[in-house]
């Protein structure tokens, strides 16, 4: 047990490197998911049913296919399409497409939670479609979806661990490398301590995000106004 702990302490630089990659990956994914998610979620509330149907199709596809399959498809498939993607961009793209699907659902829920009266009043005042969104719907919706997006960030941080399977040296992979070295070179297997440590670090980061998300929800509900949107259930990963 102590050998495992000592190994973790000795390799703090490698672990920190992995953690940085995890955080980088999570932020790139969050930004891409938010932008794309807001776009798609907004489009999911327009009157044209064809557009809404297309968005629903996208969301369904990317939430139903296992994330591991999405990432492998992009990583293994991209070279065949003539676009060689290195591991980090491939994982970022895969996670972003999935994150955007979840983001779109959140934003759609956020916009639809706003009472219809708002939209009607805006139209009565003579505002055009996109101005309605810009001035009336988005400011309210985006404030309401903040807790849900924070929850989504916790899920994104967790899903970056898939990068280890295609060669991104993120936090989980860093732990794996330590175990590998110790097993082959010294014959000792510290997997229990190292993976236990990895779990604890993820738990610390994500439970802070989850707690923040719950706090935001309480604060926004206390302020009144439209209902906040719940964070996507981890089960619907």
């Amino acid at each position, binding site marked *: 047990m102590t050998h495992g702990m000592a190994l973790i302490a000795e390799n703090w630089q490698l672990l920190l490197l992995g953690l940085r990659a995890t955080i980088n990956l999570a932020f790139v994914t969050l930004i891409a998911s938010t932008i794309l998610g807001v776009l798609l979620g907004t489009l999911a509330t327009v009157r044209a049913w064809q557009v809404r149907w297309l968005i629903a199709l996208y969301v369904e596809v990317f939430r139903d296919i296992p994330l591991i399959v999405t990432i492998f498809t992009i*990583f*293994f498939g*991209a*070279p065949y399409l003539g676009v*060689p*993607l*290195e*591991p980090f961009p*491939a994982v970022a793209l895969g996670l972003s497409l999935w994150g955007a699907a979840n983001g779109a659902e959140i934003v759609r829920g956020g916009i639809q939670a706003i009472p219809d009266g708002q939209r009607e009043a805006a139209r009565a005042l003579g505002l055009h479609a996109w101005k309605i969104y810009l001035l009336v719907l988005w400011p309210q919706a985006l404030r309401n979806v903040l807790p849900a997006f924070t929850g989504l960030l916790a899920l994104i941080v967790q899903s970056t661990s898939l990068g280890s399977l*295609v*060669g991104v040296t993120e936090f989980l992979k860093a732990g*794996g*490398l330590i*175990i*590998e*070295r110790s*097993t*082959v*070179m010294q*014959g000792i*297997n510290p*997997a229990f301590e190292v993976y236990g440590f990895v779990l604890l670090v993820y738990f610390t980061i994500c439970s802070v995000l989850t707690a923040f998300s719950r706090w935001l929800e309480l604060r926004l509900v206390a302020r009144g106004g439209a209902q906040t949107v719940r964070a996507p259930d981890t089960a619907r990963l």
Partner: protein
Amino acid sequence: MSIFRRSLAAGAFLWFGIGAAEAQLPPLPATIRDAGVLRAGVRCDQPPYGFRGADGGFAGIEVEMARQMAVWAFGSADKIDLQCVTAENRIPQLNARRVDLLIATLGVTPERARVIDFSAAYRWGGSDLLVRRDSPIRTLDDVRSRTVIMLRGTTQALWFDANMPGLNSLRLNTASDALQALIQGRGEAYAHDAATLIVIAARDPSLRLVGEPFAVSDAAVGLRKNEPEWMAWVNAALNRMKAENLYNPWVEAAVPGDIRAPYSAAFNQPRPMAR
């Protein structure tokens, strides 16, 4: 002769020597030269070819080959970007352009030749089975009714799929996972390159090799398809390593004397026949 003159003479010798040697290798392709470093995929879990040294850095015979190529290409062994690859992801990493060549215990097989190009072979390698010392397994056929551990995407996986299709096989991702699985009793035999198993068996008296060679193949450098200039350079570099007898000192550095013979044979002697 004073030290100054001696070093001047030595410098002149080296200068002309390097100049003459450089003349032996064709020019580097522009894309490789522009990268400024040699981006090579190597194994990190397969002693003695590619593994992590005591200081945690890259070590092994194939790693030395990569470093030598960096010297010849860019003038210094430091102008190198080594990337750990596994049997499962090495070819995708090459095609994704994360690395420019693979010196990663890559066996020549027709399936792989469809998606990448192989250089001339620089050595051959056979396979073997690692079992616990008290195991009843004595021959290759003894494993037919048992669970065999192997790595995804290796020549052993291909061989067992072709020759023992109904076999119960446990397919993991790295040599350390496979070794752990064997020790934990999740499988009765671990099939991999003999070269790696010999080193592991030598280090662990509770394990032994079955010793019946099978799945012998050439090992070559892996390159992306349609890169003829790069292929020419790599082949010339491999020829030069052979001509200047560079493999032997690397083998001596990576492998202890009592088990050195098979490795020298792999580099210096022709490939034998086996199942």
